């Protein structure tokens, strides 16, 4: 492997280019028309225009990307995250063209891409999944199943969505009536009275395990990240470790994630996402078969460069570390600074960044694309910079992040920085006692 085409843009393209450079690999960037001034174009050794601005015609244009890779003499393609990163067909086409796809096999991507199939696979591999049932016949069967699953349970109309046909049942006395209501709602809204049951996870945390694997059957996990600070499933702030995990629970979740990876003969960097309930039970949600936006917090506490590890695994090398070599130090936080206005219902605020100063100083890491004078294109995602800090403990990391965001200056566009400062100052967050409903509650407290 000598030359890597990076089939992406934004901060992740810079991240990959940097890893390549440190490994002595040449880099080829691709870009859409209108994206000429984006930093990844300038940072790479070479850049190829692959189409007009809309992503389907450029960053998702498989033919042009592959032609660019072959024509520029690249021997590997790193997909970053988003765009083609979890497209099994693309991974397969890379292989057909003799290009190394920096990621797992197409089979692994497919296995994890189908959520139902993934759930079954995981259950078979001994990874806990959310207990659930097929269609519930009647109240008697419902009572039996609910007793097995244990309360609270959720009744869901098979064709439901948006909260319609969904009923939370806290105790046996409510079951029969709730089943009747769910059926009726399903019938009324979707002409389908079929109802399933699954365990209801109260106040879950989104805790994910980072894994690393090679082509030789070695798999290690690098601990967890807590990504519960979400707005409509968009993560806004991540931390590692998770404040709610004991070393024993970390080991259990880590082992489950390794089992998940082994079940699909995973290779490279991947993430197994779990829901964690208040009793310490965890349930498989999905596996992301790519590098994650929030990978830096894991890097900061383990000292392991995940993107380099991806590249080395793709090149066929054996993992340089074993599970017992993985050691955690301190605490890391990441804030995703988006070009969005939290005071205007998170509307995107593309435009020219007229002034920019990233924070500097000890234990502050910036993975960003923001630059003074640069116009944030309206076509793509709104992430302009990730601010990552490390501290000896959680309190130091929080104080450091507050300091860093306080000295960060972005002029010309609105950003999420004010919201991040609000999160960091919140007592619930500071206690570490938050869940996926935290941000909605915080925003609702604003009168929204």
């Amino acid at each position, binding site marked *: 492997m000598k030359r890597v085409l990076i089939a992406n843009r934004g901060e992740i393209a810079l991240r990959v280019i940097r890893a390549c450079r440190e490994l002595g690999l040449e880099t080829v960037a691709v870009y859409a028309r209108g994206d000429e001034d984006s930093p990844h174009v*300038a940072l790479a050794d070479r850049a190829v225009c692959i189409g007009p601005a809309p992503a389907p015609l450029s960053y998702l244009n498989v033919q042009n990307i592959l032609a660019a890779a072959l024509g520029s003499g690249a021997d590997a393609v790193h997909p970053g995250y988003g765009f083609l990163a979890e497209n099994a067909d693309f991974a397969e086409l890379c292989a057909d063209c003799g290009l190394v796809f920096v990621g797992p096999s197409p089979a692994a991507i497919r296995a994890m891409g189908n959520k139902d199939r993934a759930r079954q696979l995981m259950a078979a591999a001994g990874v806990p999944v959310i207990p659930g049932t097929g269609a519930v016949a009647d109240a008697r069967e419902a009572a039996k199943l609910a007793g097995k699953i244990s309360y609270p349970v959720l009744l869901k109309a098979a064709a439901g969505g948006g909260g319609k046909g969904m009923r939370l049942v806290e105790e046996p006395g409510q079951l029969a009536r709730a089943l009747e209501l769910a059926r009726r709602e399903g019938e009324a809204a979707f002409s389908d009275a079929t109802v399933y049951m699954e365990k209801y996870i109260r106040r879950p945390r989104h805790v994910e395990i980072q894994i690393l694997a090679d082509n030789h059957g070695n798999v290690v996990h690098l601990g967890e990240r807590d990504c519960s600070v979400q707005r409509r499933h968009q993560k806004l702030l991540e931390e590692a470790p998770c404040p709610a995990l004991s070393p024993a629970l970390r080991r259990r979740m880590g082992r489950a994630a390794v089992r998940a990876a082994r079940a699909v003969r995973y290779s490279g960097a991947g993430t197994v996402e779990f829901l964690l309930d208040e009793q310490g039970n965890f349930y498989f949600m999905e596996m992301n078969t790519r590098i994650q936006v929030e990978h830096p917090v894991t890097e900061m506490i383990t000292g392991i460069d995940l993107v380099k590890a991806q590249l080395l695994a793709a090149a066929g090398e054996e993992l340089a570390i074993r599970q017992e070599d993985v050691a955690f130090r301190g605490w890391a936080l990441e804030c995703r600074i988006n070009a969005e206005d939290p005071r205007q219902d998170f509307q995107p605020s593309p435009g020219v960044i007229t002034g920019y100063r990233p924070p500097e100083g000890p234990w502050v890491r910036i993975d960003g694309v923001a630059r003074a*004078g640069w116009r944030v294109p309206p076509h793509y995602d709104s992430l302009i910079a990730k601010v990552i800090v490390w501290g000896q403990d959680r309190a130091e990391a929080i104080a450091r992040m507050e300091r860093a965001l306080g000295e960060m200056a972005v002029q010309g566009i609105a950003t999420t920085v004010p919201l991040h400062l609000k999160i960091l100052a919140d007592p619930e967050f500071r206690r570490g006692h938050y869940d996926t409903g935290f941000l909605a509650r915080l925003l609702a407290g604003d009168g929204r």
Partner: protein
Amino acid sequence: MKVEELLKLVEAVGASDFDEFVLEAQDVKLTLRRGRPGGSLVPQPEPAPVPAAPVPDQPVREPGLVEVTAPMVGTFYRAPAPGAEPFVQAGSRVKPGDTLCILEAMKLMNEIEAEIEGEVVDVVAENGQLVEFGQVLMTLRPCKP
């Protein structure tokens, strides 16, 4: 520097239409600035890192010429096969539907056809080289019918 000298400078600058004037005496440092037009107002504080991205050639051209650009990324071929005659060269007359060149992408040979009637002025792209999306392949001088 004496006051008289400074006065002269101030008068001179005042009569001009410079918008800013900075002087630092003792081995003299002088700045005159004429602000306003949009260009200079937009700060360009961020220099391009090394190495800069390649920028396609954009020489000044004869007005009225039509550029034929690459509709896809691919390898540019002037001829149907190695050693064969090129499809066109400077001076060739072409009409709509005539093949101008081939772009090879993933083993597929895509013929690029003329869309107008005219004369080939210049073949810009290099044979056997990767061309980007939108890159100018050749220029045509349209026929006035």
